[in-house]
């Protein structure tokens, strides 16, 4: 007998769902404090190995955005893509939800907070949960 499949899994492994509120975790270089979301071989700033996990803040400000009208198949449009400077450190790219996809409604510098959404469900009924930001 195998274990029951999980009820939900994160869309990417740097989104943590099972430790309090959903939040992002980054690999922080012990040498320079540089932050990364991927599996690391070394710190691209110093060239040195050595990382610890760091929980990032769920709030930040928009650094830049675009509104995508022509997208990859299966992706509903238009949607807002943003680059967010997180409070306390870290830069992340995600969608901006709960806002009109209109250039007059989005601006660099606007405060945002983390939210989550359902990205899909597999044949076991497992839900893939993604993260995004919304106006704070």
């Amino acid at each position, binding site marked *: 007998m195998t274990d029951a499949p999980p009820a939900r899994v994160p869309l*990417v492994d*740097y989104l943590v769902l099972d430790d309090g509120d959903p939040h992002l975790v980054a690999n922080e270089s012990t040498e320079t404090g540089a932050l990364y*979301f991927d*599996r690391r071989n070394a710190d691209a700033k110093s060239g040195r190995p050595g990382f610890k996990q760091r929980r990032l803040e769920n709030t930040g400000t928009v650094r830049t955005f675009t509104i995508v009208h022509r997208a990859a198949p299966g992706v509903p449009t238009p949607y807002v893509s943003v680059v967010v400077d997180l409070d306390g450190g870290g830069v992340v790219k995600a969608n901006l939800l709960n806002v009109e996809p209109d250039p007059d409604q989005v601006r660099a510098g606007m405060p945002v907070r983390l939210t989550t959404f359902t990205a899909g469900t597999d044949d076991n009924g497992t839900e893939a949960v993604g*993260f995004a930001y919304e106006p704070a």
Partner: protein
Amino acid sequence: MAENDVWIIGAAMTKFGRYLDKDVIDLASEASMAALDDGDVSIYDMDVLGAGNLMEAASGIGQRIQKQIGQTGIPVYNVANACATGATAVRCVFLAIKAGEADAGLAVGCEQMGKAGLLGASARSDKQVYEPSGRYGAVMSVEGRLGTTLMPGVFAQAGMEYAGRHDGVGFEQFAKVAEKNHAHSTLNPLAQYQKAFSLEEVMGADMMAYPNTLLMCCPTGDGAAALVMVSEAKLRTLSDEQRRRAVKVSASVMTSDPWTDADQVQPDVNTLTRAAADRAYEQSGVDPKDLDLVELHDCFATAELIHYDNLRLCEPGEAGKFIDERGPWRDGSTPVNVSGGLISKGHPLGATGVANLYEVATHLRGEAGDRQVDGAKVGLTHVIGLGSACAVHVLEKAAA
């Protein structure tokens, strides 16, 4: 013994075998870091990177390695040459040292010949179940779900970052870039498209990723370009006609993207362009104000506008004012993309970096026909590939 003899001071390899749990970047990083340690040097001591790989040859393998082991902005040469690929990477570093452009360099050859799937089928059935895969443990494609990394959107975000930081830059200024390049292309018989559009037509075209409309994006297409270059010593032996038409390469610079806090999330096209341009101006002794024409990388209209600033063609922060005042038009203070640019001339990917040199050289030779920039003596070319790599050249019509 010559000053530019080349010596090996560090060497390493991974055990060869099957690595189901390591991708090509893991393997290349391991070997690279071990070689640097063996030589008792760091990535910061390297002036050039030669990276050889076949199966992921178009993926910017050198830059992907840098993003793990050290983004120092050095030139990266990604090479593919069948089974001689690794030796070709070594040759790149060897030639750079021989030429006096590098004191030290890292050459790496790597391959991961297996395949990793994205959506795995469960062992017991043909069900599709989520399986984390890749360096981010993704269970499906994140494109469009965690923002966009497709080109129109990436370059839109790059342009909008500039617009957010500086006054006088908005949709209209970006659209004016495309209006200019489409107009310029009507004089270029070699351009893929040779049709002018009004500003209203540019802004009213189908929106791809705000603010880039269809007419503000380069097309896909096919083509090629080639150059023949000789040494000064060789040129002296050639005919009067060959010498008369010769164009001097006064600067040739390659850079990669140095580490910044956001670069691995949203590619930064500014840092490495500025670094390449500044080095090219220094190498050639040419000032941006001396340039008679520029062919820069307008893959999207948003890209061209921020490169006015990156290439120092305008005052810092004033790219919007520069296009509003028609500075980069063919009759302006610094003609930019009189060929029609990538937007209208086209962008067969591998050809563009040679085609812009063809264009500037043709003007410097006085052979550009209807689109000739009168009296052109000095030109600059700029090309940038995401991942990233930037090359800037300065050409001059000098007495040969």
